[in-house]
């Protein structure tokens, strides 16, 4: 690789969505040589074939240990690769660990060329985590909606209420008990199943 070429970057990630988010970010920033590996079988063989300058891998991936083999003196290694755990830069290490990502770089690649890649990686990983949180929250809100609907149905049937009356009853009980409507709804469902 010549000094001004875009470094070849490999993303090792089993999550296709996160990898896509990261890949897109890197492309937007002008990094053209980005490859995503999602298949962990024969990971090293693929990496050796691609011969990247930078490898990005999420910390939840057990295959991080597989990458450690690159440091070993063996016939498979083409050139030494160092990990981006430079003690002089504690803040960026902390940021990458918090974001859940780690990077391996080819020895000799200048630090100022790596820093923007890693920063971008950290911010995209954090964005993905935020997205995951939102998704989880939306999903649980949907779940709660379903539980409340079921509880309303039970109340309407057993107490001969209208839908609005059933909801009012749920809400006032929740307020009295200082609980969420979803919790009251769940206990109605549980109780009705037990009494079946």
């Amino acid at each position: 690789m010549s000094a001004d070429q875009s470094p070849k970057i490999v993303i090792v990630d089993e999550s296709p969505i996160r990898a896509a988010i990261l890949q897109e970010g890197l492309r937007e920033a002008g990094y053209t040589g980005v490859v995503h590996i999602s298949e962990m079988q024969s990971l090293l063989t693929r990496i050796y074939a691609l011969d990247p300058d930078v490898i990005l891998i999420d910390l939840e991936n057990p295959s991080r240990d597989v990458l450690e083999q690159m440091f070993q003196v063996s016939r498979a290694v083409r050139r030494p690769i160092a990990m981006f755990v430079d003690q002089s830069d504690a803040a960026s290490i902390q940021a990458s660990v918090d974001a859940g990502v780690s990077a391996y770089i080819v020895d000799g690649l200048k630090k100022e060329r790596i820093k923007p890649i890693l920063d971008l990686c950290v911010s995209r990983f954090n964005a993905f985590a935020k997205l995951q949180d939102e998704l989880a929250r939306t999903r649980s809100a949907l779940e709660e909606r379903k539980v409340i609907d079921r509880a309303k149905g039970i109340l309407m049937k057993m107490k001969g209420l209208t839908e609005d009356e059933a909801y009012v009853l749920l809400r006032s009980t929740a307020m009295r008990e200082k609980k969420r409507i979803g919790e009251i709804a769940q206990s109605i469902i549980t109780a009705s199943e037990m009494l079946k």
Partner: protein
Amino acid sequence: MSTALHIGFIPLVDAAALIVAVDKGFAAAEGLDVTLAREVSWSNVRDKLNIGLFDAAHLLTPVAIASSLGVAHVKVPILAPFNLALNGNAITGSSALHAAIMGEIDGDRFDPLATARALARVVAARRRSGQEPLTFAMTFPFSTHNYQLRFWMAAGGVDPDEDVRLVVLPPPYMVDSLVSGHVDGFCVGAPWNSVAVDRGVGHILHFVSDILVRAAEKVLAVRQTWAEKNPDTLAALVRATQRAADFIEHADNRDEVVGLLAQPERVGVDADLIRRTLEGRLKVSSDGTVRASGNYLLLGRERATRPDPAQAAWLYAQMVRWGQAPLSGEALKTAMSVFRPDLYDGALKTSIQPRPSGAISAFAGPDFDPDDVAGYLAAFKVSPRAP
């Protein structure tokens, strides 16, 4: 007022003393409020310990030594005041490899020299017929598994760097890779050998105690700087894990210990597998053959928990033998000083006792002498190719 500690571990049976110390309340009784963090890779455990996210960790002994030496990674001095486990690994071969070795064996099937020589004949036959070299997996470049596998095959004349392929695989992937044919054999800790046998895809060839009687498998690792700043906390942690190790070895507590370890957020595998591991009674073949050994895994008995610097020296010698570290008196001293029996004795108020006899003897080569690593290594024929 209790002290909060974050401790990383890998879900393996040999993390038992740490898990029981926390879940049975021994750590709390010492005034420690421990949060155990279950990790997916040794790289994560090492890095999080190195940068201070963990106060202590369940760590592969050779990783503690490599970190202290700054070999292949950042240099962070690590101390080990406590052995979490001796031994516990096993070498498993696929059904095909097992059959091939048994077809060539000339001697007892549990004699590692006999199986290693048979392996050499299998390797030679494959080469003659133009087949791909065999692939063996282990868990980490700096691991007892790597050295035990290499020591075994080299004794039979197989060069682990030239005659076979040695690859790193995360333990949970081992059995699937055996099924898919990506690997022909592996050396891994419990419970993965038993999982392979239970699924009918592998045969346990050796317990690693067949290779070396006592190998320092996992340690309780802390940063040297942390240990210097927190001597009382470290002593309390050593006492809590020692109490746990004693508790684990008591047969009356077996059910409770198995129950604690089987929890999904701890080791999280079938309770029966954990029980067999702790009892040292392993089914070695799918035909139901069971092999029992008092040396299979030592957690608290036979003074297993007290670090022995000679053990660290043996592991360092393996690093030198396979070209991972240069041979120097200074490096040897550094490696040995990772193990801190003085901190162990100080915490437990025990007095120094002589090492159990035959501690560092393997099935091949001379007895190990930490004062003559070069002489020891010269006794072995197979060594790494020149760099």
